[in-house]
């Protein structure tokens, strides 16, 4: 199938995402939730297949993330920021299990 080339974005506070720059990922350091939100929508329109988003921001922009949940691109993947994991990634897995099965069975 179509094998276009895509890029990978990392979105989060500056200290958490800086290291990813060394790996050659596209880094979007943001300071506020508002900024994160508009950046996310901007990213979604471009050729980014994967967006890594720190949980600290994700916690406050659930609606924006939900919008891309059923789309093929981008895949928004939560990663813990430098303040530590909030357990949101795991909670999201649980949520999708509940969505599919109708009950939490794991």
């Amino acid at each position, binding site marked *: *199938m*179509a*094998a*276009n*080339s*895509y*890029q*990978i974005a990392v979105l989060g506070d500056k*200290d*958490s995402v*800086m*290291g*990813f*720059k*060394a*790996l*050659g*990922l596209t880094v979007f350091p943001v300071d506020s939730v508002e900024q994160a939100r508009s950046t996310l929508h901007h990213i979604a329109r471009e050729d980014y*297949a*994967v967006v*890594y988003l720190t949980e600290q921001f994700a916690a406050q922009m659930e609606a924006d993330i939900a919008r891309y*949940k*059923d789309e*093929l*691109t981008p*895949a928004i*993947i939560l*990663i*813990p*920021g*430098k303040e*530590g*994991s909030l357990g949101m*990634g*795991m909670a999201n*897995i649980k949520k*999708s*299990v509940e*969505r*599919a*099965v*109708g009950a939490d069975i*794991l």
Partner: protein
Amino acid sequence: MANTVVNPTRMELTRLKGKLKTAQRGHKLLKDKRDELMKQFLDTVRELRELRSQVEEELMRVHSSFTVASALMSAQAMEQALMYPKQSVELTMSFQNIMSVNVPVYHYQTRTDDTGDIFPYGFAATSGELDGAVEALGKVFQDMLKLAQTEKAAQLMAEEIEKTRRRVNALEYVVIPNTQDSIRYITMKLDENDRATTTRLMKVKDMLLAEALEEKRAETARAVKTFGNSSEAPSEV
């Protein structure tokens, strides 16, 4: 509850029977699809949980080494060190079809293949902690990409399962019973019509018979009257 506003005709009955057959077949197929998707989904989720906890743990370690590195270096120096990446990653995406759900499969291509050659800075001006942090991050990254792929697959499959489950339930609890009710209604109505026709015919036959008998009797009576006096005539009928 049943949809009783159907025409009780044979044509409608045939149509409904066909519909019922299709619905039952569809129900069976969708149920199979749901079961298989569920199986795949649960496998994916199990893998995903493992992967995620592993990645989160590793990332936390990377973050802490970055914190140490930034404590040893000034913020400017660190930013400067990481500003111009040597490595670049290009991602290509293909699709894998799992029970008609298209899930992405990522392949990435790095500009330099050597994982030891990713440091975008000279070692002289930076602390050793930063090297460790960047190297560790480079290792985590492969798992992160796998995590992204698995997680997206799980999300897409969850959506498809939900859709399929709703369809299965709609067929099982609404479409099939309603159609069966309609079929029963039509069958009963047609049987009722049949019985009504039979009774009507019997009634008509009775009337015709009675009429014929009456006629016969009258004829006989006339004959008796006419030939009553002759000796060969039967005295009674």
